[in-house]
């Protein structure tokens, strides 16, 4: 049998059972790789279930820096789930390795000649070492990480340091965890010929980057953006945005003098209420937000229309998952793009921010509050399950202490005293954004009625056609002017030929370098544009029109952003092709390259024929 060989370029898949505490061990493994100076990414593949079902965690190690999910079989599988063992054995790449719990003997029929079986009686070891059932379960995970350290040649000190960092403050846990790592390490060293032909070697490719999930970044961004009022209702995969916000608030937002909270997080009865709470907070001058996903977005649309029309700032973080309806709740997609861009009935339009890395989740979430206040409208931060719940290598978070919150056009009592005339919807500056006042500001000036019914410049109810049109046109104008404040697209020029362009957005970013490199190997040079916001910047239209053909890469069935581009820009729809991936797993570089290549060759054939 040929052994698969590779240094710093392979995939390890962990097969676990939901609810057995494997997540922290798997994360420790990924972090150890990063601390070895190597680019690494990890994808959770988990079912919509709480306990007992199979889950997988796939770690890609890539010295070349290709961190999107990789197609094809993993080189090493750690099979810890008896339920899925058959499938897991089948999943190993020929020449690859299977580390499994050999406490129970594998049936002969499951053996494959083309792969290497590394049996380790993990359950037996734990049974001998620990009397407590919970410990027996938990330390199984730590033990296999220890074994991997020997098999893959991970510096053991790196793991020890990780444990010490992880349990800082809970020092009692450090020793037993290191002991469990050692158990695994020593067993593997003795029983197997370590290291394997696939292994890691130290490099210095990480710089100051961090390994973090998007939802943590978004929650933290909200803390930095000054959010104080939160309404929410649990839904996967958005829940951890709020949980992280809450845990950072507990650390950073409690007044040390009196223990009082400088925030209020209301767990609402449903999403209708969650966004209502955010709206009430925004109306009353607090920075307020909510987070949701799929079905929650549907419920929130009535309020989004009100916020658009009555011009109330609020932030909504939508962590997309596979729809429609309940769809695949724990699988990723980018399929709420159209729903969110045009959320609500009537002529309405919402501002979308579309981050691609945890750093951008942090930045955009913080900026969203400035934008919401500045533009007096909801800002929807569009991420997805892959971005939100998986850890990604990212530039570190940064904050400019000189940055001052942009609270937008709010008149205080002095302003009102000086002003000769106040009309809530008067376009004083010609940018479509009007001055607002907060309740309680002035005894007899500046009060107005906020309503979702048609209103004139003085916020009075009106059904006069011309007043209605004037207001609607101002709202359009406000959006057109507002585009300048939104993050510009990121353009990468690899070729002057401008034959093919790739347009993409969000978490797809991770797969792009590999796609571009594969295409280049095949002789196709492409330029790329990453959309970062809606309404679109004029640069998007120019990029598309400058290229002979543009591929819009998306993780949905209907090519939603391609449709949005056709709808919003004056470009020839025929100049764009779709690359669509929507099976619920993150898109891969190979998929993009193959799909582009296939469509290009069809075009060439047609041209020839």
């Amino acid at each position: 049998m040929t052994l698969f060989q590779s240094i710093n370029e392979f995939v390890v898949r962990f097969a676990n059972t939901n609810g057995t505490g494997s997540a922290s061990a798997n994360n420790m493994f990924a972090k150890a790789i990063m601390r070895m100076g190597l680019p690494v990414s990890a994808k959770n593949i988990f079912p919509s279930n709480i306990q007992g079902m199979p889950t997988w965690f796939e770690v890609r190690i890539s010295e070349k820096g290709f961190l999107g999910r990789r197609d094809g079989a993993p080189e090493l599988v750690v099979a810890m789930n008896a339920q899925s063992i058959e499938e897991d054995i089948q999943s190993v790449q020929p020449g690859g390795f299977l580390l499994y719990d050999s406490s129970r003997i594998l049936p002969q029929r499951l053996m494959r000649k083309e792969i290497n079986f590394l049996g380790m009686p993990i359950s037996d070891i734990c049974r001998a070492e620990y009397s407590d059932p919970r410990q027996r379960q938990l330390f199984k995970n730590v033990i296999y990480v220890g074994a991997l350290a020997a098999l893959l040649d991970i510096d053991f000190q790196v793991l020890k340091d990780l444990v010490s960092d992880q349990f800082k403050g809970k020092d009692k846990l450090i020793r037993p965890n290191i002991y469990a790592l050692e158990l695994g390490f020593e067993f593997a060293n003795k029983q197997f010929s370590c290291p394997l032909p696939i292994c890691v070697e130290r490099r210095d490719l990480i710089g100051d980057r961090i390994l973090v999930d998007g939802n943590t970044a978004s929650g933290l961004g909200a803390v930095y953006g000054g959010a104080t009022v939160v309404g929410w209702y649990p839904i996967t995969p958005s829940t951890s945005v709020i949980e992280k916000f809450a845990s950072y608030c507990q650390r950073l937002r409690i007044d040390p003098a009196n223990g009082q909270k400088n925030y209020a997080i209301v767990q609402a009865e449903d999403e209708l209420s969650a966004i209502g709470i955010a709206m009430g907070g925004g109306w009353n001058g607090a920075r307020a937000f909510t987070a949701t996903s799929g079905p929650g977005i549907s419920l929130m649309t009535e309020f989004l229309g009100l916020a658009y029309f009555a011009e109330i700032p609020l932030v909504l973080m939508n962590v997309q998952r596979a729809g429609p309806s309940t769809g695949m709740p724990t699988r990723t997609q980018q399929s709420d793009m159209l729903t969110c861009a045009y959320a609500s009935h009537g002529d309405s339009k919402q501002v979308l921010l579309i981050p691609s890395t945890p750093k951008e989740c942090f930045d955009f979430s913080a900026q969203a509050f400035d934008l919401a206040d500045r533009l007096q409208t909801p800002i929807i931060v569009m991420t997805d399950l892959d971005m939100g719940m998986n850890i990604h290598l990212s530039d570190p978070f940064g904050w400019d202490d000189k940055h001052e919150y942009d609270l937008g056009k709010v008149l205080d009592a002095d302003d009102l005293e000086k002003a000769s005339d106040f009309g809530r919807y008067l376009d004083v500056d010609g940018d479509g954004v009007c001055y607002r006042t907060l309740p309680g500001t002035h005894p007899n000036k500046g009060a107005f009625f906020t309503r979702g019914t048609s209103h004139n410049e003085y916020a009075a109810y009106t059904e006069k056609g011309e007043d209605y049109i004037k207001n609607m046109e101002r709202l359009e104008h406000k959006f057109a002017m507002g585009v300048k404040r939104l993050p510009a697209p990121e353009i990468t020029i690899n070729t002057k030929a401008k034959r093919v362009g790739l347009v993409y957005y969000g978490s797809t970013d991770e797969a792009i370098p590999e796609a571009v490199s594969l295409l280049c190997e095949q002789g196709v040079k492409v330029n790329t544009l990453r959309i970062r916001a809606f309404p679109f910047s004029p640069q998007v239209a120019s990029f598309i029109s400058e290229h002979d053909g543009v591929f819009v890469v998306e993780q949905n069935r209907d090519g939603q952003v391609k449709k949005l581009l056709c709808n919003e820009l004056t470009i020839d729809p025929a100049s764009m092709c779709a690359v669509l991936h929507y099976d619920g797993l993150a898109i891969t570089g190979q998929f993009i390259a193959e799909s582009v290549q296939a469509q290009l060759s069809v075009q060439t054939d047609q041209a020839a024929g």
Partner: protein
Amino acid sequence: MSYIKPQFKHPRLQVNDLGLTHRDYEGALSTLCAGCGHDSITSAVAQACAELSLPPHKIAKLSGIGCSSKAPTYFLNNAHGFNTVHGRMPSVATGANMANRELIYLGMSGDGDSASIGFGQFAHVVRRRLNMLYMVANNGVYGLTKGQLAATAEQGMKSKSGEASLFTDIDLCVSALQFGATFVARSFSGDKSQLVPLIKAAISHKGFAFIDIISPCVTFNNNPDSNRSYDYVHDHITTAAVADFVPVKQEIRCENGQSDSEDICLHDGSILRLSRIDADYDAHDRIKAMTKIEQLKSEGKILTGLMYIDPEADDYHEINGTSDAPLNSLKQETLCPGSHVLKTINESFR
């Protein structure tokens, strides 16, 4: 259509402690049907706020959608108002209250708004113990959509199209009691002498105060068969307690020798004085209040007055431990942890 009232004030109009006249508590001219019960509620609210000498701009008035929800336009011109969406005023009021705990929150809703589309939000705002006064103008029908039966309409009550309500009604006072409201009252829009003191007490109550106000819809539900008509209500009313409200700054007179009267001290120090019609009625017993409502209902009677009060109630912010300073007043220095903290946070991800 929107009407503007003349600004002229008679120089000898009576002023309150703030130097404001009753006119300062009015709103735009009503566009509701002439004789609509909701207009009487409007004027009771204005009167209550004037008598309490509340600064109008420190009040936020929020509503859902419906004729009743239009009512806030017609009181307190100098207060900010918010007509939200149908049935969802409670959540917006919650967010607003989270942002600024110092304002006074008046919620105005209808029976359709609160007992149907918004029943969930109603239940939960009560549970959350939001410090607000929540009023439902209860006419048993949907006024704005022209006469459909509401969920508060009693079984057998007929809509304008002649259909009788087939199902048991929702009694919002019983619901509010069950959901944990700490002030529950019912009144009648046509009885200002009862309604005004109740509104005053409810505003002074810390925590969630609910008043269900029977408010006949003259256009769609004032026929003699309807138990929401003026005549019916007048003939079938039973009062739990007559409330009198003594603001904190007024001298409290002693009314001695009346065993069926009780003074309840509200959190701002003002006094709610109850004289019970029914000598056994105990306004501190949640369960008995529910039983009494149901018992009278089975006799075709309507219990009004203050049904329940817990003068020691907490509100959401106390339970949550929110900062005393309104959240919307906190500055960036307090809210933003700054770049040095971010450095250590970055470390935790390496």
